[in-house]
């Protein structure tokens, strides 16, 4: 059984006892425990079920590489599925439940898959479930989905919040082991701005566990001194519980700081996402031990050798009473020594190498541990827990030579550098035959903006398993040099390590294992990928490493193959009779370990999900019950419903009141761009299809803008302010886009033209006072002459109204007598209130965007985005009058000359009236006779705007119809979504006040 040892445990505080639950069972742990350590201390080796076969799964590792020990952490609004027990710090009240089983962890029906495992090899689903056709969606897929999936889906809105922050550094050191600390020291002493981050809560990495001696002192002491020095320097930032998640181009790095994972609900953000821009990155992320592939290597109790000694040394937890160590290198002996010295039984060290004569094997033998060389494990016995192993010759086929009873197996297949950060932006790897691993190829680093190396790997992450400090010193020096700094005098501390004999790559144990054993050798524990599966993939032609990965799902589990990838590659290479480096690796992608989506999204939630633009009158609208609609980042009142009114009723009331009395519209969102300079007129003549240079001062003119394709992109009224100044109104959604468009042409094409532009949209509030009584409202406000003579239609004037400085435009988008009045934004709210007050006796009511739409449709005015959709040219809309025939050039002119745009067969704008007075459906098409070559019903047009006109009491519509204007009086058929059609007559698009008398009074 696994137990807590009486003494020891460098990371736990035995005076701080904590209580937590696992599957409802109350268990005890200590401060400093990881959940995995605490579970083992309570003899909870079985922690979950695998993805495919639902086999029992125990803890394998002690860190981020753990594939098995995933739990549902917390509950309700704090439920977090797939939380790794090995990286979860225990806190008082922690709740964890195991995953992927039914009805319980101990008794899981899904384990039937295990008994059928032979029928479910890699890729079996591609070969079956093909017939009958409907069965995949309705029978097989639901079963597969239900049995897969691991953790529970949260149901509630997250109770926690997340924070994002920016950081900048010359050098970011990822990894707080001795290599990282040394690199940080070298850089910090040289004066660089340094960040060093460590994913766990503790500095120092493996060295203190392995009893390294640095500069004559225990590694832990050296680590403390290093951290103390770094913390004392003003140019250094240290962060624990902070994982370097991903390296992006040009020195951009994401760090995930787990601020309050271990103190949930304390009010702090759960995570803080650091968005770093750094000069160079030191990748000091260490190395991960590899499992060995022997039959039954997935049975709970089989663990990484390094993890076993982590549990003993760090948390005083012994995973087993009798532990067999199996290894292909000297490092594995450290575990045997550690266990023996802690008083545990180590029946045997099984070494696949023929000779084991290094210093560590000698020490193990000296402690009386039996060492068997040239041997391997033929098979592990046990179900939910290891019961023993059968030993065999490594060079043989697995005939057992003896049975050794044990309750744990510690395996060491050598180490693999953690090269993720090196690889994210394209750093290349090289195969190191001596250590049987891929390590960073310093001659092919990932590059940054100027083409220089962006990442430097250091220490074990660079393959320097035994010279980590010297390597880190060296790499830090080079990195500093590339930043124009120097650390010439820096030296590496003395690092005393026992000599190690060469390891020997062992990819399959025993070497000649038959298929029956290979079908029990796990590569990917979580996804249930075995040696036999990779061999099957190779046999079937899935030869590329990416094919094998995808066909077998090797390395696609939540650990992203941290334990399985190299072993899988080696098996694939063996199956293909080729070398491992020729097989290559799969691509490393961010993040290094999974990052909570909430942290990636940050604070932008709910109301502040996106920026919110408000007009100066926004508060008034809110107080007066406006129903808003989003227009870009603006929110505009759609209508102002009164008690008991539907939105539709409110819109009709607003329209009728405006037409009979007076309506007030907040038009502040309208784009306003000042164009000024000696060449401003010439510039506007290029920008608009019409002529603006001839516009008299004091007058307004409607204008159209097209893109270079010739398609209509924006419209609005232009006012000539003075000799060299024009004010261009754009659509509400278009102001920023059009301003950018203007600047594009001025800066990049006509840069010798003398023109300034300024987007003053938010500098002015604008109120449209609209309706037959509009003038009376303005006269009531008083201050300037607003008569037809003083401010004629399509004219403008400056003055004051009600004491406010105003500019009054006589323009109309409704067909009524209409004044659009601009005031400085700071006066907007007050001026609006003054208009409301002055209008009261004339029946003034505010109206919203929908009323505006209805009224403009009644008048046959087009709306950008309704009549246009990016494929419509002004000529389609009968706006030829707004296109200059005289100008040699304007933006879009050449585009409109292309054959398809100049065709006589284009759909053109007309009005429609249904024969029965009903409203044509939004989006309806006008059908034509017959079908096209693809058997689709032919069409000849479509509706673009369709409303019930409260003014006329029936449906009105505008739309595009092939040869439209010459077909007046014809009856056409519009589609309805119920499959029927509605007949409508082609009419003039102006339904109300055809001669435009009402606006010109």
């Amino acid at each position, binding site marked *: 059984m696994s137990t807590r040892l009486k003494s020891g445990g460098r990371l736990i505080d035995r005076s701080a006892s904590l209580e937590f639950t696992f599957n409802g069972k109350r268990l005890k742990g200590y401060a400093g425990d990881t959940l995995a350590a605490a579970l083992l201390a309570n003899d909870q080796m079985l922690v979950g079920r695998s993805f495919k076969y639902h086999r029992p799964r125990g803890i394998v590792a002690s860190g981020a590489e753990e594939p098995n020990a995933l739990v549902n952490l917390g509950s309700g609004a704090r*439920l977090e599925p*797939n939380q790794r027990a090995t990286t979860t710090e225990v806190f008082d009240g922690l709740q964890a439940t195991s995953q992927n089983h039914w009805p319980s962890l101990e008794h899981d029906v899904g384990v039937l898959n295990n008994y059928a495992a*032979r*029928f479910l090899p890699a890729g079996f*689903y*591609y*070969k*079956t479930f*093909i*017939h009958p056709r409907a069965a*995949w*969606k309705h029978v097989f*897929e639901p079963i597969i*989905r*239900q049995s*897969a*999936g*691991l*953790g*529970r*889906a949260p149901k*509630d*809105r*997250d109770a926690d919040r997340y924070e994002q922050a920016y950081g900048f550094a010359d050098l970011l050191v990822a990894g707080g082991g001795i290599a990282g600390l040394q690199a940080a020291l070298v850089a910090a002493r040289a004066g660089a701005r340094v960040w060093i981050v460590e994913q766990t809560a503790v500095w120092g990495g493996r060295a203190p566990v392995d009893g390294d001696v640095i500069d004559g002192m225990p590694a832990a002491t050296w680590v403390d001194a290093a951290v103390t020095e770094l913390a004392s320097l003003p140019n250094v930032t240290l962060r624990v519980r902070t994982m370097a998640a991903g390296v992006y181009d040009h020195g*951009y790095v994401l760090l995930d700081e787990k601020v309050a994972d271990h103190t949930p609900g304390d009010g702090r953000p759960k995570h803080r996402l650091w968005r770093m821009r750094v000069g160079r990155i030191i990748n000091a992320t260490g190395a991960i031990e590899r499992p060995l592939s022997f039959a039954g290597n997935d049975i709970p109790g089989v663990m990484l050798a390094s993890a076993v000694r982590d549990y003993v040394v760090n948390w005083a937890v012994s995973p087993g009473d009798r532990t067999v160590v199996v290894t292909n290198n000297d490092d594995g002996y450290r575990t045997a020594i550690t266990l023996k010295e802690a008083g545990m039984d180590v029946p045997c060290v099984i070494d696949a190498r023929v000779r084991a004569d290094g210093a560590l094997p000698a020490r193990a033998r000296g402690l009386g541990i039996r060492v068997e060389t040239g041997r391997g494990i033929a098979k592990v016995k046990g179900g939910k827990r290891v019961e023993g192993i059968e030993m065999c010759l490594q060079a043989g086929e697995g005939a057992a030579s003896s049975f050794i009873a044990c309750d744990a197996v510690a395996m060491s297949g050598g180490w693999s550098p953690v090269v993720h950060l090196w690889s994210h932006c394209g750093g290349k790897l090289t195969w190191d035959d001596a250590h049987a691993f891929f390590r960073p190829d310093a001659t092919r680093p990932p590059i940054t903006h100027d083409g220089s190396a962006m990442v430097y790997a250091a220490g074990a992450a660079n393959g320097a398993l035994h010279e980590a400090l010297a390597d880190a010193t060296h790499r830090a020096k080079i990195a500093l040099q590339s930043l124009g700094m120097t650390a010439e005098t820096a030296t590496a501390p003395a690092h005393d390590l026992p000599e190690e004999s060469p390891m020997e790559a062992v990819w399959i144990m025993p070497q000649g294992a038959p*298929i*029956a054993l290979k079908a029990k050798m796990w590569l990917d524990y979580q996804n249930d990928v075995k040696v036999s599966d990779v061999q*099957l993939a190779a046999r*079937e032609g899935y*030869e*590329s490493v*990416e*094919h094998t990965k*995808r066909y077998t799902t090797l390395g696609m589990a*939540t650990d992203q193959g941290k334990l399985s990838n190299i072993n899988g590659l080696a098996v694939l290479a063996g199956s293909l009779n080729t070398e491992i480096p020729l097989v290559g690796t799969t691509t490393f992608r*961010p*993040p290094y370990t*999974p990052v909570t*989506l*909430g942290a*990636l*999204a940050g604070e932008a*939630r709910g109301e502040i*999900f996106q920026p919110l633009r408000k007009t100066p009158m926004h508060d008034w609208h809110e107080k007066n019950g406006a129903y808003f609609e*989003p227009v870009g980042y603006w929110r505009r009142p759609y209508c102002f419903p009164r008690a008991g009114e539907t939105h539709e009723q409110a819109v009709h009331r607003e329209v009728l009141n405006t037409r009979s009395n007076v309506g007030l519209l907040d038009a502040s969102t309208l784009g306003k761009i000042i164009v000024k300079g000696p060449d401003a007129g010439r510039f506007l003549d290029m920008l608009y299809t019409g002529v603006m240079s001839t516009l008299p001062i004091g007058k307004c003119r409607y204008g159209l803008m097209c893109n270079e*394709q*010739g398609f209509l992109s924006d419209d609005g009224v232009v006012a000539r302010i003075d000799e060299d100044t024009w004010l261009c109104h754009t659509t509400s959604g278009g102001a920023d886009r059009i301003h950018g468009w203007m600047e594009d042409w001025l800066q990049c094409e006509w840069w010798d033209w003398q023109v300034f532009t300024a987007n003053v949209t938010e500098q002015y509030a604008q109120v449209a006072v609209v309706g037959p009584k509009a003038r009376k409202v303005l006269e009531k406000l008083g201050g300037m002459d607003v008569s037809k003579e003083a401010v004629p239609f399509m004219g403008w004037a400056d003055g004051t109204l009600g004491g406010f400085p105003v500019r009054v435009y006589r323009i109309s988008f409704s067909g009524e007598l209409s004044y659009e009045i601009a005031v400085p934004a700071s006066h907007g709210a007050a001026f609006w209130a003054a208009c409301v007050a002055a209008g009261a006796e004339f029946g003034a009511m505010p109206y919203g965007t929908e009323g505006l739409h209805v009224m403009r449709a009644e008048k046959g005015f087009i709306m950008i985005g309704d009549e246009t*959709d990016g*494929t419509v040219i002004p000529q389609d809309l009968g706006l030829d009058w707004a296109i200059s025939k005289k100008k040699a050039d304007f933006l879009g002119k050449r585009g409109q000359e*292309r054959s*398809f745009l100049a065709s006589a067969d284009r759909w053109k704008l007309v009005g429609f009236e249904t024969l029965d007075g009903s409203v044509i459906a*939004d*989006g309806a*098409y006008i059908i034509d006779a017959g079908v*096209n070559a*693809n058997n*689709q019903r032919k*069409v000849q047009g479509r509706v673009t705007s369709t409303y019930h006109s409260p003014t006329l009491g029936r449906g009105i519509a505008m739309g595009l119809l092939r040869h439209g204007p010459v077909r007046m009086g014809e009856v056409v058929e519009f*589609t309805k*979504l119920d499959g029927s059609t509605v007949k409508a007559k082609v009419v003039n698009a102006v339904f109300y006040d055809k001669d435009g008398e009402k606006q010109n009074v």
Partner: protein
Amino acid sequence: MKRYSVFAIAREALNFHQGWERAWKSPAPKASYDAIIVGAGGHGLATAHYLGKNHGIRNVAIIEKGWLGGGNTGRNTTIIRSNYLQDSSAAIYEKARSLYETLSQDLNYNVMFSPRGVMMLAQTHHEVRGYLRTAHANSLQGVQTEFISPQRVKELCPIMNIDGPRYPVLGALWQPRGGTGRHDAVAWGYARACSDMGMDIIQQCEVTGVRSENGKVTGVETTKGFIGTKKLGIVVAGHSGQVADMAGFRLPVESMALQALVSEPIKPCMDVVVMANTVHGYMSQSDKGEMVIGGGTDGFNNYTQRGSFQHVEETLRALIETFPMLSRLKMLRQWGGIVDMTGDRSPIISKTPLGNCFINCGWGTGGFKAIPGSGWAMADLMAKGEPGPLAAEFDMWRFREGRFIDESVAAGVAH
């Protein structure tokens, strides 16, 4: 070739599956072929497949510089739908969708087509009108869609928050027979079927030049030597510009990164595909349980298969706003693909200035769903030398004439 079935699996199980043959052969190139397809992605393999199946042209090589299915076929978010606005788009995507319905049976390879339904959310009034327009168009195009209410949206996708403070859901365009498929399996299934017809799939073979005489292609230079052909089909997505350049013509195409990501797997919680265009994000749940998430493209020319973080961030913000339960899930992996974007964001299936050379590209962000239809139409074009009705509008000369096929016009998304 051995047929795949549950019985075959049972038989092979007795021998630990040591009797399975290669799914596709790995031959050396012959001196020449009747047709060469450059690019063994989904579109290239499907083109070859239908050349053989529909037109009896089987002396075909499919040349791939990397591994088959290794480009965008293996990097997309696997959405299959055909609720497009424009007639020509709807025709080819619906052809593709209907072929997906029976593709597993046709190929004897389970591509896991899962018609679970695709909904495109309308979150502004403008979007409502746009999707209504699409619904009307679809009703005439033979594409089964309907515009559904917010309440129906909630029933179909209970984890969605339809009452968000900024962009409440006002309805959705719903295509019940849209869904997802297993992207790799589509490439593998076509590859196996092509190989079975005697076609040569030549991987790890990069085209380095296109040889032509008198305005006709005679063959391609490759890293495995010169290979002659009577017809050439270029089907290389993001690298179309490179190969077109070798053939001596230019394309209205730019290559950009499109990113996607998956969460860690969780138990089934979402049985539809949801696309939210206003806020830029789309999501489905894979059979493994991962939430598969995508957004918009990065805006600059890029061949690195890496994108910029801000787009991932924007997409996740949008989706957490729409699906609050996502917040505590974790991003497992993010990646990018290189998409080829044309001037109107619609594909090109076209003859070229070279008489016997044809091109199929420009699928941009929407290629996976089109694979069977694209291959069908391209095979037709290559076999006959003239486009059939499916490809007719997608010629490369439409840009000169201004004859756009613009899907963005009705709040449409191209994904």
